[in-house]
């Protein structure tokens, strides 16, 4: 039995497998279907300072080996989260991490400050990469200055582990990663979804309500792997890799590319128990190749 324990900038995890924000609800939705306490970390749905209704329906379109979504950060706001959801999830025995989004750096900081007060939330993930909102989100994540402005504002008020989720919809993801590292991020996670579009030829209409959406699923994995590799070679902070992971081998590829941990997103919809299966599969791989721990393979691809 290899040592699966993983440490991301002070965040202690029993294994390197996390769930990606927006794909696993608040964890409790999946509690009937998988032992959620065996997951390394659960990143809950994107949370904003004010409640958001999100975009109109339709919000999804299936694509070959993947899907597009334009949910648009529907959530009931950070106060509702603190008052009504946190009490339901605080005693789940794994890392419950809140994904934080906003329209302005001040929004992000205020939201992060409220979550900072919650004892059982050991980390946040800043979403500067949502492609489905008009203001904020990806607008910050596509320039070094914008990304740094959000991270700096949050760093001033947030003293636990600060993960920043990066957008792939940029010319140089490494430049953005370096900018957020310099602004005080403890770790980066990538990739968020790739901007895409679906068209209904018979109706001659775009399928999604806002025209575009974020693409995820196995189809995006090669793009994600390349970006994780690039960023892991550029920054000093730990990298969390995600994008199209649907089996243990996919996850191991991200670790080899330089990710210290991984997130699984869309595939939770297909197999709700995939996170636990991937953790087991990583263990089997390490044993088979004679490695003692996850850290032994991180970034070792030739």
């Amino acid at each position, binding site marked *: 039995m290899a040592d699966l324990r993983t440490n991301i900038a002070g965040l202690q995890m029993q294994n390197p497998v996390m769930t990606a924000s*927006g794909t696993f*609800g608040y964890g409790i939705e999946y509690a009937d279907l998988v032992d959620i306490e065996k997951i390394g970390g659960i990143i809950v749905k994107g949370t904003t300072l004010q409640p958001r*209704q999100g975009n109109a329906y*339709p*919000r999804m379109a*299936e694509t*070959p080996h993947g899907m597009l979504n334009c949910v648009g950060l529907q959530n009931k706001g950070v106060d509702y989260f603190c008052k009504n959801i946190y009490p339901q999830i605080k005693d789940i025995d794994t890392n419950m991490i809140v994904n934080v989004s906003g329209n302005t750096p001040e929004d992000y900081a205020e939201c992060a400050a409220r979550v900072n007060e919650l004892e059982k939330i050991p980390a946040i993930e800043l979403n500067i990469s949502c492609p489905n909102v008009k203001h904020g989100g990806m607008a910050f994540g596509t320039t070094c200055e914008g990304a740094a402005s959000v991270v700096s504002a949050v760093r001033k008020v947030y003293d636990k582990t600060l993960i920043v989720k990066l957008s792939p919809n940029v010319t140089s993801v490494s430049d953005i990663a370096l900018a957020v590292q310099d602004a005080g991020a403890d770790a980066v996670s990538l990739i968020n979804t790739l901007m895409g579009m679906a068209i209904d030829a018979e109706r001659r209409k775009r399928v999604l309500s806002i025209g575009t959406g974020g693409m995820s699923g196995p189809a995006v994995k090669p793009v994600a792997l390349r970006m994780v590799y690039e960023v892991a070679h550029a920054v000093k902070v730990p990298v969390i890799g995600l994008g199209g992971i649907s089996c243990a081998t996919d996850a191991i590829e991200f670790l080899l590319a330089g990710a210290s941990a991984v997130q699984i997103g869309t595939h939770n919809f*297909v197999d709700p128990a995939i996170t636990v299966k991937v953790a087991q599969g990583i263990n089997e791989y390490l044993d088979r190749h004679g490695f003692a721990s996850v850290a032994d393979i991180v970034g070792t691809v030739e």
Partner: protein
Amino acid sequence: MKKHIIDLRITFADRLHPRYVLIKGTPADGSRLPEMLPGQFAQLKVEGSPETYLRRPISIHDVTSDTVTSTNKGEEVSFLIALAGKGTRQLATLKVGDTLNCIIPLGRGFSMPTTDAPRILLCGGGVGIAPLLLMGRRMKEAGFEPTFLLGGRSAGDILRLSEYEALGKVYVTTEDGSMGEQGFVTQHSLWDNAAFDRIAVCGPMPMMKAVARLAKEKAIDCEVSLENLMACGIGACLCCVEDTKEKGHVCVCKEGPVFNINELKWQI
């Protein structure tokens, strides 16, 4: 209700019609089927379909059980599936003995009748008739007499008629007049003397809206079963939302798929 991931062993698979397939399955490991309510659905995994990725949400058509023994012998859950795209066409290739992985049961089903409101019209269009069979069965078991109004393009779309007739009175409309009265379900003569406490509707959106409009005119309570495009099926991804009067965007997979029309912001 507790959700389960179950491998079903296919016990029956029949292409009833070029556009529909009926599949029945029983838990492959010999365990009992979980409790399921009429109007709930399952997320079926589509294997061997390179161009699709997600599960397919399919309503629970029927549940049969052997009440004599405590084993799962004879316990079957049925799905009546319309071949709408690549995923459902792949499901239609399942054969007896194959395995079908499903997450079941999901969502909120139809309201059952009460002694104060016993008369429910079960109104289905096309493959929307599917969940009404289990609803009729549960009504009959509870001592209520279901009435069915089933509509389709032609006689071939009115599937498994004898199963429905075994549970209650069945009225039929077809657009080409090849079975029952010609026209849409809303044009059937039974509406002239309609005396129902509630209508439970499942079918294409224009048909459900037409029935909802009629129900409103006649001041009859009405529930509709929505089939918004969904990914997860359990309220996590927030893709399948419907706008509601009191709660804003809610997940059809979790708060529905069955809604009272008074909850919805439909312009009818």
